[in-house]
């Protein structure tokens, strides 16, 4: 039930961020002494130029889409969950450990792995929610601390108790081939995880715009005092919001394991959980725009390498540009939220 005005704002925010990104990338190319036309041609060819490239772009988009949706859910409740990275890791670890140890029909095994990943991520987000509800802890700090704990804990577990073999690296045993998520695009690594992510996006959109839970969630974000007076428990909602947010990110981690890596290892995420904050903000916390934003970021991730080869700008420059966008958008949102609370 978003008004037209809100929709325009959403589109403007996303397009504005995209425009800034393009300008910054162009500037970087010019500074590096390369032709922006050649650079962009390489970027798009690298990202979309063939089945393989498209598949890889969509793999990246999927990996970003899960945590971005989770982050959006929490942000809509006014909770700055920056713990998606940790939630992704524990979700992936749960899926990897379950997959390596259960012996079930393949379909059931997939459900168990994905469900276990979602549950682990949910618990991880839920801990932050509980700390907030019980002790009034700041969720930014709580989720950030939990990221470090998740990294250490998963690192420890796969180096020791859950290690595949004494001689192997820090990873769980490989999944039986039958447990792999089916491939969506033949001859690529793209699995049906993309469809699951899109289904979650649709579900999230419906929950936020149609259900009582979604309205209560947004109410605590937009008008906490009015929400409290309407009988909505801020504590309960904070717990639920952070737990569901973590569950979505955890599901993402599990889907990387089941669909792509086919085992858990500590290199599961090159920072998807952080990049996803940018995706969520560029998508204006609207599930539909977040799908678009995830695709755009997928293009940047995949095409960035090709661009590096042609235009001489390191791929890291793209991450710097992403960072700039996040800071700009987050600041804008933070200021708007504060102003709303003050008036």
């Amino acid at each position, binding site marked *: 039930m978003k*008004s037209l005005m809100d929709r325009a704002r959403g589109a403007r925010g996303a397009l504005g961020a995209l425009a800034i990104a393009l300008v910054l990338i162009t500037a970087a190319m010019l500074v590096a002494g390369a032709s922006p036309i050649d650079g962009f041609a390489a970027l798009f060819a690298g990202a979309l130029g063939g089945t393989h490239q498209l598949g890889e772009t969509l793999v990246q988009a999927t990996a970003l889409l899960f945590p971005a949706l989770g982050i959006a859910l929490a942000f809509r409740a006014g909770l700055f969950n920056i713990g998606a990275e940790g939630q992704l890791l524990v979700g992936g670890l749960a899926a990897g450990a379950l997959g390596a140890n259960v012996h079930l029909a393949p379909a059931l095994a997939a459900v168990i792995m994905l469900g276990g990943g979602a549950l682990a991520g949910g618990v991880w987000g839920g801990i932050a929610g509980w700390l907030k509800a019980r002790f009034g802890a700041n969720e930014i700090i709580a989720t950030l601390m939990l990221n470090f704990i998740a990294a250490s804990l998963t690192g420890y577990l796969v180096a020791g108790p859950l290690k595949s073999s004494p001689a192997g690296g820090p990873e769980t045993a490989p999944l039986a081939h039958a447990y792999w998520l089916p491939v969506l695009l033949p001859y690529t690594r793209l699995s049906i995880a993309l469809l699951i992510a899109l289904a979650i996006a649709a579900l999230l959109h419906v929950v936020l715009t149609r259900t009582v839970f979604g309205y209560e969630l947004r109410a605590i974000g937009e008008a906490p005092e009015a929400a409290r007076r309407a009988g909505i428990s801020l504590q309960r909602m904070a717990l639920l919001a952070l737990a569901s947010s973590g569950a979505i990110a955890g599901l993402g981690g599990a889907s990387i394991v089941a669909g792509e890596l086919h085992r858990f290892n500590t290199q599961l995420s090159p920072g998807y959980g952080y990049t996803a904050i940018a995706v969520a903000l560029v998508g204006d916390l609207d599930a539909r725009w977040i799908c678009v934003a995830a695709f755009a970021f997928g293009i940047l991730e995949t095409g960035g390498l090709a661009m590096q080869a042609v235009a001489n700008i390191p791929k890291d420059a793209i991450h710097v540009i992403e960072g700039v966008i996040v800071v700009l958008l987050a600041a804008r949102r933070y200021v708007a939220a504060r102003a709303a609370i003050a008036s």
Partner: protein
Amino acid sequence: METGRAMSVALALRGIRKTFPGVVAVDGVDLDVRRGEIHALVGENGAGKSTLARIAFGELHADAGSVEAHGTVGLVHQHFELVGRLRVWQNVLLGREPRTGWRIDTRAARARVTHLAQRNGLSIDPDALVEDLPVGMRQRVELLRELERDPAVLLLDEPTAALAPGEIDAFFATIEQLAHNGTAVLVVTHKLNEVMEHAQRVTVMRHGKIVEQTQIARTSAREIAQAMVGGELPAIAQRAATVLAPCLSIRDLRTAGAAGLRGVDLDVRRGEIVGIAGVEGNGQSALADAIAGMITHAGTVAFASPHTTVGIVPQDRAREALVLGWSLVENVAFSRFQNARMHAGPFVNFANARTDAQTIAQRFDVRAATLDVPVATLSGGNQQKIVVGRALVDHPEFLLAYNPTRGIDVGAAALVQSRLVQARNDGAAILLISFELDEILALADRVLVLFNGSIAGAFDGASADRGELGRLMAGGA
């Protein structure tokens, strides 16, 4: 007042027009505000007063017309624009703090704000956090912030809506002093007695146009009201005989804090309106919050049955009652989600919410372009009508109404008051907390005076004497 200097125009608006999607808010307005005058701007809710003030201030751009101001213009907003996380003195001096070297001289800053407040008869704690303050106090902060800037043209958008009567007098003494020193003052208000007592000229707006402009000496409150609504004022509904039955019983209610309650006993029965008279800050907020279950307290607050249905009109519509970014339909569902009509399984029942929104809009004469615009785009009075309408739409057995007509125009106020009386006639128990003695005298079957956290006196509505009430409200024994 009509000396040569006083006649010079400080703010000249010419042919101002402003449209929003679906509404013409201001429709070709010419208005002069002169140096040294207090000029009242009145009109129905949604007439375009706030929009005009914001255009004159330069915060909104007119679609057509020109604004010419001699000197700086200050605006006290109808909906405050304060930073909740900052203290009072920080808000007042924001961006203009006194400095010693590169540091803010907090001592000097506090002293300046305290002095400013004292000089203008507005007492306030300069160190309080704005987000902790009740509406009346926030109003003062907003006012002090503009006074501090000493503008040549001062625009005041319902500055007294959240002030208590005693404060209103002090406030106008300040404003008159400013005008005497040459400030041009434009004051938007719904209180016509203020217009008659303090203004020299009045401009009446209706549907975005000026329908009347005259010297106060040549008109009366009644004529102004008629010009506003375009006819006679509606009368308040008659009280019918009712059967009284116990509903709310409060015993020895005590709450913490300086503005807390120190042992309050009161009963509200079905079929009656109990009015709480008093100056803000004598425990009204604590009483309302204790009944709403929002604060901890000692003593009992007991309803006749655990199933008693309750409707609440909180004191601050923007912060405590509405989600401003949501539509009318969504806000009508909000706060009633537990109501079986408002959901179908986990889903919001938008069809029923729309029906209720329509009912409310019609019964309370809410003026909005459609039911789907964000309530933030509604005029203040129309937002208030939604809050009152929503509290009554389920026919609650008990209604807590805290300044229910705050910001509502005289015509619509009579309508809202009639709805309260009708609810009472239909058997609702109503606790009316109001800073407007007139409102209490017009509506209440029984009047209790709240002073310093205790009930200082109880009267039958019919026999309550205004002078006696006033004396008790001021702390007289």
